[in-house]
């Protein structure tokens, strides 16, 4: 492949592609049910390994056979009605699907008065979208005859979800977690242990999520006969990005049907937060071939992208390879991975899934940074206006939706009302785990309380 030199600067506006999409909007909407986006090649169900110049398998040869086995098993499972029925059954009787689509009327008043709908992945079992992927992959692990799953986790959401699926399906589960995080997230470690998982503190490298992935990969190389690596996001080597997306597509499928039912039309915009990109690609997928629907991914801007302390991979990263895929990557001038920073552990990753890199380059989706402060303001706003405590990851999507709504309202065509515009936000998770962080952030804890001490270390209760 050729070395593709992408401009390193922010690409958040995507002006030209949007102009083209806008001109097709009305027609695309009218013709949708018959043949969506007839003038465009479909972007849905992109099979990998490549998404434009991204994706692939930048992996040690030792693991290629396991990736091949996984790919074959996955392809066969998709065509097996027994497997798809199993997924549907688990989704409806265990995970709690379909998740609701809730209109957030009071919150929407702060978003320029457009209508805002929340796709309630927070109501799923274990509290986030992560359950969709772990159930699917754990079933595949069983189909491959594997008896053990390993996973990486940052804050512990994916670790808890993996431990849950492993408990349900009778698999041994080992979770790799940065040593710092195991201390700061002691309660999530206990949760995983209650579910029967073993948590291994990672003391290598920078001791963060990316190092937990490194150690999981090292484990996988050595134990690949018995072990499936249950990767937690739509990143990594083929088939992970396309496979993880497949298990999350249900978010977008449901949301599309629900919004049509509740408003009689497609939304103007869909907003999601982007860590590795799994919740975002899951909801985007339902709308990829609806050119009138603008797709927005919100990355963690940390202290601000100009501060250098952020996780805005697409906004500021450059193409590179990490953990098996070519994608945007936060790296220094020598190709060493940089450390990311975010108040939200789930977005604190210096890479991003390759399909997002592609969607960014072709202008189909736009990616923007949201700072810690903007996210926490939106977090508080949703709590107060709707009685829903979101995950701090999700709060980035909410903050982005406020901006998108205000822009839509400022940009109305003659005769249009703000209330004609519709935004869906993927409410990827609930904030129970973040109560201590938020309480500390908003200075709600009494000085010298045990909770404050824990919260200062970032404990997510």
């Amino acid at each position: 492949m050729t070395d593709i030199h992408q401009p390193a600067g922010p690409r958040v506006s995507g002006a030209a592609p949007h102009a083209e999409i806008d001109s097709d909007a009305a027609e695309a909407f009218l013709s949708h049910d018959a043949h969506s986006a007839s003038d465009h090649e479909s972007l849905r169900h992109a099979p990998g390994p490549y998404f434009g110049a991204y994706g692939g398998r930048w992996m040690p040869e030792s693991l290629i056979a396991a990736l091949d086995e996984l790919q074959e098993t996955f392809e066969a499972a998709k065509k097996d009605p027994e497997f798809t029925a199993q997924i549907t059954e688990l989704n409806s009787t265990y995970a709690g699907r379909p998740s609701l689509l809730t209109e957030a009327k009071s919150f929407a008043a702060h978003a320029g008065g457009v209508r805002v709908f929340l796709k309630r992945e927070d109501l799923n079992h274990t509290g986030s979208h992560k359950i969709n992927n772990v159930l699917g992959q754990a079933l595949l692990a069983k189909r491959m005859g594997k008896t053990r799953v390993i996973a990486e986790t940052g804050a512990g959401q994916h670790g808890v979800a993996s431990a849950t699926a492993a408990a349900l399906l009778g698999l041994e589960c080992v979770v790799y977690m940065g040593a710092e995080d195991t201390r700061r997230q002691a309660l999530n470690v206990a949760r995983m242990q209650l579910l029967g998982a073993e948590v291994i503190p990672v003391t290598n490298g920078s001791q963060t999520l990316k190092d937990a992935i490194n150690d999981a990969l090292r484990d996988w190389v050595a134990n690949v006969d018995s072990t499936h690596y249950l990767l937690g996001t739509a990143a990594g080597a083929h088939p992970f990005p396309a496979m993880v997306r497949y298990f999350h597509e249900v978010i977008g499928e449901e949301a599309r049907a629900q919004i049509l039912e509740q408003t009689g039309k497609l939304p103007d915009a869909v907003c999601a937060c982007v860590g590795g990109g799994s919740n975002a690609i899951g909801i985007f997928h339902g709308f990829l071939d609806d050119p009138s629907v603008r797709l927005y991914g919100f990355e963690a801007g940390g202290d601000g992208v100009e501060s250098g302390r952020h996780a805005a991979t697409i906004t500021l990263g450059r193409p590179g390879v990490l953990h098996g895929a070519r994608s945007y990557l936060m790296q220094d001038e020598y190709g060493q991975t940089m450390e990311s920073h975010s108040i939200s552990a789930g977005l604190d990753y210096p890479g991003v899934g390759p399909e997002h890199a592609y969607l960014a380059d072709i202008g189909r989706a736009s990616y923007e940074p949201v700072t810690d402060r903007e996210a926490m303001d939106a977090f508080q706003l949703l709590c107060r206006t709707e009685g829903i405590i979101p995950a701090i990851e999700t709060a980035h999507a909410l903050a982005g939706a406020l901006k998108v709504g205000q822009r839509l309202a400022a940009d109305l065509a003659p005769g249009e009302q703000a209330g004609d515009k519709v935004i869906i936000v993927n409410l990827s998770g609930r904030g129970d785990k973040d109560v201590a962080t938020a309480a500390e952030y908003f200075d709600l804890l009494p000085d010298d309380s045990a909770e404050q001490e824990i919260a200062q270390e970032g404990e997510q209760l």
Partner: protein
Amino acid sequence: MKTLSSKAAAAVEKARSEGRAALIGYLPAGFPDVPTTIEAALAMAANGVDLIEIGIPYSDPVMDGRVIQDATVQALAAGFTVPQIFDVVRGITSATDVPVLVMTYWNPVMRMGVREFASRLAEAGGAGLITPDLIPDEAAEWMAVSDEFGLDRVYLVAPSTSPARMRSTVEASRGFVYGVSVMGITGARTSVGAAARAVVDDAHAAGAERVCVGLGVSSAAQVAEIAGYADGVIVGTALVAALRDGGVPAVAALCKDLSTGTGKNPS
């Protein structure tokens, strides 16, 4: 597997002509500093090592165990930067005829630009690259550029490698094929197991003229065992630990000892 003007192939063939397997020694660049890397590499060359492998310290070395990780973390913390690899290579090749291969994860090469990296490596007198996380399937640019600059491209094959992949990887390699002895990462092991022999046999059967075995080799006895069926033996972790604990003299002593195992028919 192409032999044309391959420095690594010449080194392995020279050992073969002397009735033994080649001994290949690995050290990471910049551990504990650049001058010591060069000094230690020259000590390897003077004590029976036929081919030197220098690793580029990288932030995410997924194929490496703790000893090499710790050494490369230390090198990076001490300020090692990727372009210094060319100083290391030049420092070695200007003082010995023993060829130098660079072992690198792929992102640092991509970041510099594959062509620029290759041209600077060739200019420094380097033999080529060993690429633990680059498979031939993703290597179109490296294939072309390594041809252009006459550099070796050493890919890995593993116990899990399918027969079809074995053939295509052997075909894509130049210099030798790196046979991974066990399913795992770098680190000393007491035994390398039967899998190593099967990998070597399969690679030979797939047409490889030279197959060298690495991962877990730490003693002269292991070298002797592997020399019985492979064309070369690669030692890494044990040398890094020797350098860490006893400096350059310990590296020299270990190489001298390891090289006693390379004879094809140890009596």
